[in-house]
């Protein structure tokens, strides 16, 4: 374990800016999001979590795939500058691993995602203030999980304990990172244990998939979808949702092909040109979202597409709580 003082950390971040594009939490009118910074002073690490999940660093909400002119592709999007994603929470880092299954799985490789993923070093910041809506531990995570990180920082007051997880992480260390003392490591361990205990929310996931297997035609979905407004807050703020739309924007012979986030909660998502819609009402769309996360995804990748970050609970305009939904599924 290494350590670095907060002051040195700031200097370190500043020094990274010459070689890397650094994405870090930025506070805009009280809403945190990961943005490229130009100065370490723009960073605000005193945050709960970002509103929009950092998946957008690898899978932007709106991304040009390529441009074309007169019927020829002129340029395909590619990141050449190395990136650092600083300060992401372990839950979101875990979500990236889930997205890897989809975008960097065995069959088709999503070059845009992979390109950004490969060029990014992820420095996570352990979560010392989990909320009552956090349930990462239910999905095999923890506020200090190292999964999906290159470096994990643990805030122990005036300095960070630095847990280097991968070689990629090791490469960027400077001599400002010194060996942590035994007491400091112990303190970090203590903080870890205590924080983990503060996660009170527990969601039982065992058996949910099997139960869902039997529930496709259940009236449960009618009931669940009644209050849903069919907006896309839950899907857009979810760190694991990954559906998208592809569209062309063009004028005369010049244009580009763009992909934008899309949501299964929108009626248009599955509407066919003929007018037929396989998921015509709120019920089917709500079912699709839950099924995809807690049944289909498990069927394909052995894991639920949820990391327990709690964003959907906190931001749903009508206060639908996925924890409650999962509980009701098991008991219905």
């Amino acid at each position, binding site marked *: 374990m290494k350590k670095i003082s907060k002051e040195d950390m700031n200097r370190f971040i500043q020094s990274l800016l010459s070689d890397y594009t650094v994405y870090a939490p930025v506070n805009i009118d009280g809403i945190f999001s990961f943005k490229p910074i130009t100065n370490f002073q723009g960073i605000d690490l005193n945050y709960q979590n970002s509103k929009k999940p950092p998946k957008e660093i690898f899978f932007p909400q709106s991304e040009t795939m390529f441009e074309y002119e007169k019927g020829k592709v002129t340029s395909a999007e590619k990141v050449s500058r190395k990136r650092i994603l600083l300060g992401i929470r372990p839950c979101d880092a875990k979500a990236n691993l889930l997205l890897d299954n989809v975008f960097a799985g065995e069959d088709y490789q999503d070059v845009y995602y992979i390109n950004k993923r490969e060029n990014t070093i992820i420095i996570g910041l352990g979560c010392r203030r989990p909320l009552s809506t956090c349930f990462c531990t239910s999905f095999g995570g923890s506020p200090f999980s190292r999964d999906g990180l290159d470096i994990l920082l643990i805030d122990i007051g005036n300095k960070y304990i630095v847990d280097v997880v991968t070689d990629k992480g090791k490469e960027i260390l400077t001599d400002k990172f010194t060996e942590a003392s035994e007491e400091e490591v112990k303190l970090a361990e203590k903080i870890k244990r205590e924080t983990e205990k503060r996660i009170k929310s527990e969601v039982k996931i065992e058996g949910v998939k099997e139960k869902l297997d039997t529930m496709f035609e259940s009236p449960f979905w009618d009931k669940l979808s009644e209050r849903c407004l069919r907006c896309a807050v839950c899907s857009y703020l979810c760190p694991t949702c990954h559906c998208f739309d592809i569209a062309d*924007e*063009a*004028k005369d012979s*010049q*244009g*580009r092909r763009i992909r934008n986030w899309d949501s299964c909660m929108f009626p248009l998502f599955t509407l066919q040109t003929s007018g037929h819609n396989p998921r015509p009402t709120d019920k089917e769309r709500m079912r699709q979202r839950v099924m995809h996360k807690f049944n289909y995804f498990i069927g394909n990748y052995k894991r639920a597409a949820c990391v327990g970050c709690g964003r959907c609970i906190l931001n749903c305009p009508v206060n639908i709580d996925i924890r409650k939904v999962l509980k009701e599924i098991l008991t219905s």
Partner: protein
Amino acid sequence: MREKEPKILAFLCNWCSYAGADLAGVSRIQYPPNVRVIRVPCSSRINPLFILKALQQGIDGVLVAGCHPGDCHYISGNYVARRKFAIIKSLLEYIGVEKDRVQFAWISAAEGARFAQVIKKVTEKVRRLGPIEKLVKTRGI
């Protein structure tokens, strides 16, 4: 370098304002060549989205013209349109789009000279504002 000429888009109602433009033409009345005309059946055909779409594409000023109140070919089209225009005009000003980017006029079929005058006035006002920056699509499309 010569200053870029402003581009004006004019939506003209078929029955009055377009005929007014026609009259200006056959009467050989000169007016600035900055204006491009789209003929619409009635000023009430104008959806505010048309206006915004034009500005998005980099049109520097939009003029909507229809029959004088009481003269509408469809009896009351321009009265209904007038209400829509009042709202969208105030809203655009409110959010900080320059007042003269979007202008409205009543021009009858007999007002060839006035048509030319209005176009002159509109063009001058828009020229003073300079090229549009707000609302324009950032990547030109």
